[in-house]
C-alpha cells in the first residue's frame, strides 16, 4: 500500500437521472397520449416507406380498415371494431385482478380456449336434446367452469409451493391448444375444421350479431371496476399484491385469495372464449383466440389495472391492428405487419413511463460555488 495519490481525473457525467415527485396525473396522461400519437405517426411513416403511398393515404387506409365506409351509413366495420375491442377487453379485464395481486397470469389464451371448448362441446353434444334456454344456460355455465378450472390449476400450485406462475400458465396455453387440436381432429374427422353449429348460440339482439358480446363485456367492465375498487375482495387483492407479509399480518388467508382470484380470472377468460364460440364463430379451432390472450396482458398493464383506461387502450390497439392489417392487405404486405406496429407502439408506451417517473438533468444546471 504505497502512498501515491490517486491522480485519476473524473469528469462529471453529462446527464443525471433524478427520481421525480409524483407527477400530476393529467401531465402523466398527456405524456402517454403524446407517446401513442407520436408512435402511431412514426408507424405511419414506416408504412409509407414500405408502400410508396403518401402519409395521408396511409392513415386514410387505416381509418377505412377500422371504420369502413361509415359516412355512407355502413356500420359493418364499426361493429366489427367494437367486437374486437370487446373480446380483447374481456380478456384484459379477466387478467386484471390476477395482475393486481402480482400473479402473472399469462394463460388467458388457454383459459379462453378451454371456455370456448366447453361451449363447443355443449353445443354439439347437447344441442339436439336440450331446449334452447336450458342449453344456453349449460353453455354459459360450463364454459365459465372450464376457464375457471384452467386458471385454478396453476393457482393451487402457486398457493402451495409458490410455483412460478408465468411459465406454468404459459404451458397451460399449449396444453389447451393441443386439446383443441385433438378435439377438432376427432369432430372434424381429420379435416381440421368444425362446421359452424346453429344450436346453443347466444341470442342475436336486433339484427346485430356482435351486440350481445359488447353488452356482456360492458357489464363485466363495470362489474370489475366496482369489484376492484369497492369490494372487500378487491381490497384483499390489493393487499396481497402489495405485500404478502402485510396480508399475513392482518390475517388474510393468502392462499385462499390467490385461488379465489385466479378462479375469477380464469372464469372471465372462459366467458371470453364462450363469446367467441357461442357468440360469433359458432365453431372452434386452435387459433380461435388468436394470440389476443398475450395482447391482453399488455393492455391490462398499460391500462394501469383501471378498467376504464383499459377500454381506451384496447380501442387504440384494435385500431392499430385492424388499420395496419388493412394497410398490409391493400399494399400486399405480409399480415404480420400489424404485429410489428402493435409491438412498436406498446414498446414506446412502456418506455415513456420513464419520463413520468424520472427526470433528466444536464450538467450545466450545477451552480458555481463562490468561496
Amino acid at each position, binding site marked *: 500500500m504505497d502512498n501515491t495519490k490517486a491522480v485519476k481525473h473524473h469528469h462529471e457525467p453529462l446527464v443525471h437521472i433524478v427520481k421525480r415527485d409524483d407527477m400530476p396525473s393529467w401531465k402523466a396522461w398527456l405524456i402517454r397520449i403524446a407517446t401513442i400519437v407520436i408512435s402511431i405517426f412514426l408507424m405511419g411513416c414506416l408504412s409509407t416507406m414500405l408502400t410508396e403511398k403518401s402519409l395521408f393515404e396511409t392513415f386514410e387506409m387505416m381509418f377505412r380498415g377500422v371504420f369502413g365506409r361509415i359516412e355512407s351509413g355502413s356500420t359493418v366495420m364499426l361493429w366489427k371494431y367494437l367486437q374486437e375491442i370487446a373480446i380483447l377487453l374481456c380478456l384484459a379485464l379477466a387478467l386484471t385482478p390476477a395482475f393486481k395481486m402480482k400473479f402473472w397470469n399469462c394463460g388467458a389464451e388457454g383459459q379462453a380456449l378451454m371456455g370456448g371448448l366447453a361451449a363447443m362441446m355443449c353445443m354439439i353434444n347437447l344441442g339436439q336434446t336440450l331446449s334452447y334456454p336450458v342449453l344456453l344456460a349449460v353453455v354459459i355455465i360450463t364454459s365459465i367452469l372450464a376457464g375457471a378450472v384452467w386458471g385454478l390449476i396453476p393457482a393451487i400450485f402457486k398457493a402451495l409451493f409458490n410455483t412460478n406462475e408465468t411459465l406454468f400458465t404459459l404451458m397451460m396455453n399449449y396444453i389447451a391448444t393441443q386439446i383443441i387440436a385433438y378435439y377438432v381432429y376427432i369432430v372434424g374427422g381429420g379435416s381440421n375444421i368444425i362446421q359452424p353449429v346453429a344450436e346453443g348460440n347466444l341470442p342475436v339482439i336486433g339484427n346485430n350479431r356482435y351486440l350481445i358480446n359488447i353488452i356482456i363485456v360492458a357489464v363485466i367492465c363495470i362489474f370489475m371496476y366496482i369489484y376492484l375498487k369497492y369490494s372487500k375482495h378487491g381490497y384483499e387483492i390489493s*393487499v396481497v399484491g402489495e*405485500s404478502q407479509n402485510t396480508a399475513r399480518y392482518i390475517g388474510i388467508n393468502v392462499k385462499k385469495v390467490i385461488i379465489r382470484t385466479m378462479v375469477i380470472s380464469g372464469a372471465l377468460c372462459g366467458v371470453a372464449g364462450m363469446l367467441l364460440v357461442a357468440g360469433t364463430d359458432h365453431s372452434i379451432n386452435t387459433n380461435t383466440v388468436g394470440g389476443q390472450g398475450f395482447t391482453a396482458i399488455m393492455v391490462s398493464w398499460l391500462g394501469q389495472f383501471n378498467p376504464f383506461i383499459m377500454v381506451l387502450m384496447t380501442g387504440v390497439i384494435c385500431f392499430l391492428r385492424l388499420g395496419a392489417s388493412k394497410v398490409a392487405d391493400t399494399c400486399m404486405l405480409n399480415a404480420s405487419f400489424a404485429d410489428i406496429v402493435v409491438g412498436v407502439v406498446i414498446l414506446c408506451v412502456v418506455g415513456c413511463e420513464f419520463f413520468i417517473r424520472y427526470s433528466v438533468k444536464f450538467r450545466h444546471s450545477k451552480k458555481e460555488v463562490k468561496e
Partner: protein
Amino acid sequence: MERGVDVAKQPAIELKNITKRFGAKVIANKNVNLTAYRGEILSILGENGSGKTTLMNMIAGIYFPDEGQIFVDGEEATITSPKDAFDYRIGMIHQHFKLVDVFSAAENIVLGIENGKYDLKKSTADIKKISEQYGFDIDTEKKIYSMSVSEKQTVEIIKVLYRGADILILDEPTAVLTPQETEKLFNILRNMRDDGKCIIIITHKLHEVLSLSDRVAVLRKGEYVGTVNTAETNESELTEMMVGKKIALNIERSEPKDSQERLIVNGITCVDRQGATVLDDISFSAKSGEILGIAGIAGSGQRELLEAIAGLQHLSSGEILYINPKTGNKENLRDKTPVQIRDMGVRLSFVPEDRLGMGLVGNMDIVDNMMLRSYTKGHSMFLQRKAPKDLAMKIINDLEVVTPGANTPVRRLSGGNVQKVLVGREIAASPTVLMVAYPVRGLDINSSYMIYNLLNEQKENGVSIIFVGEDLDVLLELCDRIMVIGSGRITGIVDARTTSKEEIGLLMTKSKFDGKENDNG
C-alpha cells in the same frame, strides 16, 4: 504506510457548500461545510433524518451533489460513482450492509476489484494478512447468509481495507452490536486512526461520540451546525446543537400499578423452513400495566416470538395463554390465525419491525391503511370507508402527523410520520396486549419521545406492553423488566431498574439461561 503524527492534521476530506435535494421539496443537505483530517476519528452527529447518511453517500459516490465541491487531500474531486470513491481511497461501510448473501466472505471482499488475475486463493491470503494486522476474526469461506450481523460488519470493514482505503466512513456501525462487540470495534477503529487513517463515523448516540471520537460535527435538518472538539464538550451541549433547543432526555417511568398476568407463554418452540430452531423452549409471562423489554442481538428470534404470539408462526410445541381481563378465563392462542384471535375477543395489537412491508401498505393512502385492521367488519360485500376515514383524521390530528392529507400514500410520509400512523392505528384498537418491535428505529428525537409517551400512557391504562428494542439505554430507561434472548433462547430476565448495560450485553451473547430469574417484579 506512514504512521501516526506525521500525517496528522492534514485535511483528508473537505466539503464546501454541499447541497443535495430529492425532488423539488426535500432538501437533504443545505450548504454543508466540513473538514476531516488524517489520523483522527470524526463523528457526524445528528438526529435521524438530519442528512448525515446522504452527506456521506455523496463522498462515497452513491449520490451526486446538486451544488458544492468536494476536496480530497486538497484537490477538488468529482466523485460520480463508488468506483471513483475507491480511486480516491474512500471506503464506506453502509448501515444496511452491501453484501451478496449467496457469496462467501472472500468473494464479497474481492468483488469489483479489477487488478491482475482472478485468484481467490491469493486474495484469501491477503485478507488473512489484513485481518491479523487489525485483529479481525474471519472465516473467508463462510457464506454471508449464515453469518451473524457482527461477522457481516467485519466483512464490510475488511472489504474497504482490502481496497486500500484510508478514508473510512461508517454509518451507524454500532446499531446492531452488543456493548462488548461495540467496544471491540472501537478498539479496531482506534488502531486504524493511529495508523494515520481518517475515520468518519455516523451516529446519533451521544455516549459513543464522547468515548470514541476526537471531534464531532453536528448536522441538524440537513444543515451544518458546527464542529467541536470532543474533549471540550458534553452531552447536553451536543444535544442542544443536534435538536436546536434544550430538551430533557428523560423517559418518565411510573411504577406498575395493579399488575396482573395477561399473557403466559409456555415452552414454545418454533422451527423455520430450513429446519433451524428459531425459538427454543421460550417461557415467560407478560403483565398488565408493565412494559416488558426484549433485548438481544438482531435476529435472535425476536421477530419470530412476536409473530408467534400474533398467530403468524406455526409452533412445534408449547402454548400461549391469554388471560381475559373480564372473565379471568385462560385461552390458548396457539395455532390460531390472527382473525381467529380477533374473533375470540382478544385485543392484541402488534407494531411490527417492518413498517411499510408488514404493518402498512406503502402504496395505499392513510384511510385504506386504517382499514387493514377493520375492513372485514359488517356483512356487506363492500367496503365501508367512513369509519376508517374518521380514524385517519383523528390520528393525523392527535399525533400531529405531517401529511398533505388523508389520501396520501403512506410511503411518501417521513419515517416518523409512518410510525405515528402505524402506532396510532394499533392503539386505536384499545388493546390489552400491545407488542412493538423497534418502534423508534429511524425516528427523530421528538417522534421517538412521542412514541415513548404513547407507550407509557398505554401502560398506565393497564395495557401489557412487550417492547423489542435495540438501544439498551432506552430499554433500561423505559421498561420494567427486560428479557434477554440469544439464539432463540431466553438467557435471562432482569429488573430494568437494577440491571446494567454490561450485564445485558453479557446475557445477549450467552447461549443458555441458567434458570435463575433475577426478577423482583
